[in-house]
């Protein structure tokens, strides 16, 4: 960058700062890294993209071959023709319960996401907008619980679940996840800045009850953050393994548990195991194609403030 260019950039930034109408962020950005990055940067990013895709593509290569493909020294870079056959071996295996596990994962993830969003929005609304005694302390408590490794409480939780007779049922996976500290914190942050106090007051003056105010004023305005929270909760629940693995049994698994069973049943033929991996990855992959943008925005908007 030449000295003149730099000075020029500096003036742009200054004028942007003084005149309120100027498109601020763009002018600022241009002034700092004024040159567009070179192909080295794009090359680096392309390598990362390939690195992210490669394990999946390799699974497809193995999963579309037969039991000897994995031992192949000169693996072909074009998928073979056995994927359907391998996939059928996955879904038809009685020990793996693939379809049932897929259905279970859909149920568990959907119910948990819906409930986390509802309860977190309620609590977030209260923390962000309502006045009550002990609010600050309670909110700090919620945030502090995020640092508590509650996963380690599996032993008593399992004892409790067997006392209730819940082991092996989806309720045992759903109930402990019905609301999360992360969700409450997330919604508190969002509602605090996105919902004007005047709207709530207007509703109250009009005689709306507290819950009515929440339902018709707070909830609609919290929709973008609620959607992101639902998305993240869905993914987290979908990929969760440890607790479902402990509390569910092999005849009623969720998808990750069923994948683990697949390896236990088929470790002699990895073309079938990796075909199962591909099958199990497809649902979230589709979700990613449609909602990846929102995921990126969500990570970049919320998680930072912890």
């Amino acid at each position, binding site marked *: 960058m030449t000295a003149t260019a730099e000075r020029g950039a500096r003036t742009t930034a200054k004028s942007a700062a003084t005149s309120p109408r100027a498109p601020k962020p763009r002018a600022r950005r241009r002034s*700092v890294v004024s040159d567009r990055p070179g192909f080295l940067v794009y090359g680096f990013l392309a390598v990362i993209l390939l690195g*992210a895709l490669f394990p999946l593509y390799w699974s497809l290569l193995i999963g579309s071959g037969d039991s000897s493909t994995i031992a192949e020294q000169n693996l072909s870079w074009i998928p073979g023709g056995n994927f359907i056959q391998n996939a059928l071996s996955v879904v038809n295996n009685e020990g793996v319960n693939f379809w049932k596990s897929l259905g279970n994962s859909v149920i568990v993830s959907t119910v948990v996401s819906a409930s986390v969003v509802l309860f977190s929005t309620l609590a977030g609304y*209260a923390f962000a907008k309502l006045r009550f005694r002990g609010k600050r302390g309670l909110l700090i408590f919620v945030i502090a619980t995020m640092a508590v490794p509650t996963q380690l409480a*599996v032993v008593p939780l399992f004892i409790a679940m067997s006392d209730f007779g819940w082991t092996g049922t989806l309720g045992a996976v759903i109930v402990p996840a019905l609301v999360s500290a992360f969700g409450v914190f997330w919604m508190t942050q969002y509602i605090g800045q996105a919902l004007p106090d005047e709207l709530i007051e207007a509703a109250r003056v009009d005689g709306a009850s507290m819950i009515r105010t929440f339902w018709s004023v707070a909830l609609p305005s919290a929709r973008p953050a609620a959607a992101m929270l639902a998305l993240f909760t869905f993914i987290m629940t979908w990929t969760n*393994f440890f607790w479902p693995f402990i509390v569910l049994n092999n005849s009623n698994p969720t998808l990750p548990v069923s994948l683990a069973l697949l390896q236990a049943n088929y470790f002699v033929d990895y073309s079938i195991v990796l075909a199962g991996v591909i099958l199990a990855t497809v649902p979230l*992959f589709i979700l990613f194609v449609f909602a990846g943008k929102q995921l990126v925005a969500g990570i*970049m908007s919320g998680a930072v403030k*912890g």
Partner: protein
Amino acid sequence: MTTSTLRVKPRTPRRIAFSQQVGRWDIKFSPYLYISPFFILFAVVGLFPLLYTGWVSLHHWDLIAGEGPWVGFDNFSFVLGQQQFWIALRNTFSIFLLSAVPQIVFALLIAAVLDTNLRGRTFWRMSVLLPYIIMPVAVALIFGQLFGDKYGLINGILGHVGIPPIGWHTDAFSSQVAIATMVNFRWTGYNALILLAGMQAIPRDLYESAAIDGAGRVRRFFSITIPQLRPTLIFVIITATIGGLQIFDEPRLYDQYGTGGADHQWLTLTIYLYNLGWGQLDFGRAAAVAWLLFLIIVIIGLINLAITRRIASNEGRI
């Protein structure tokens, strides 16, 4: 809201008084009602079980037979006397360091690259996040084969370069590198985006004045970006610690047996906990491991906080 104003008009004075009373209760108790689901659930499935873990750990407790006699700290002394516990502890830390350190360095690098004036910004950000949607179980099944001792692709590639095959499933350190790689695969991009958000919040004027003072790109990164990222870095490191020390999925599925290797090469504390509780049906000892791991995580979290604070503020002073 015209309907509600219409409704108020015909009311008699007594009914207004009553509705006012209800309204006051509504204002006073609704907030507590709204936040109660979290606190009730946390008490029932978080706090109580954590404390109860302590109670279980002081008893002989069989998975099937249930609560047995009080044994004091016998479970703890048994666990602490087991070589397996110490191996698991060492492995857990080894895997944690092998994943956390390169992960944060790479995430910083990726974030710095994404923070430039890229074309197709959203596309690159999404591509970095792609591994996050693959479940850890699937990642473990894939990488378990990529790192295969005999036919694995990685040993194959190494063979082409003339490096003898590495015992990814026999050698302790190599297996831990492989497992750390799985963790890094899934989380580096995610953390890069968090760091990227932190970077974008840094006032651009700081970079400008540094550039005018003659600071190069690298110097600007170390003297401005890193110190300014302090809160974000602390957040990323603490989350990585809490998750990393409880690692289970990847080592559990690294081979088909799931016990952490024939010689406990990649046995972690959570696998050890699981093996004690659901393999040997000894809940008392499993609970003792849970408590020990809990303490370790809390202590490491505090140390982490102290170190990150110091590093970040030192760099700010340069």
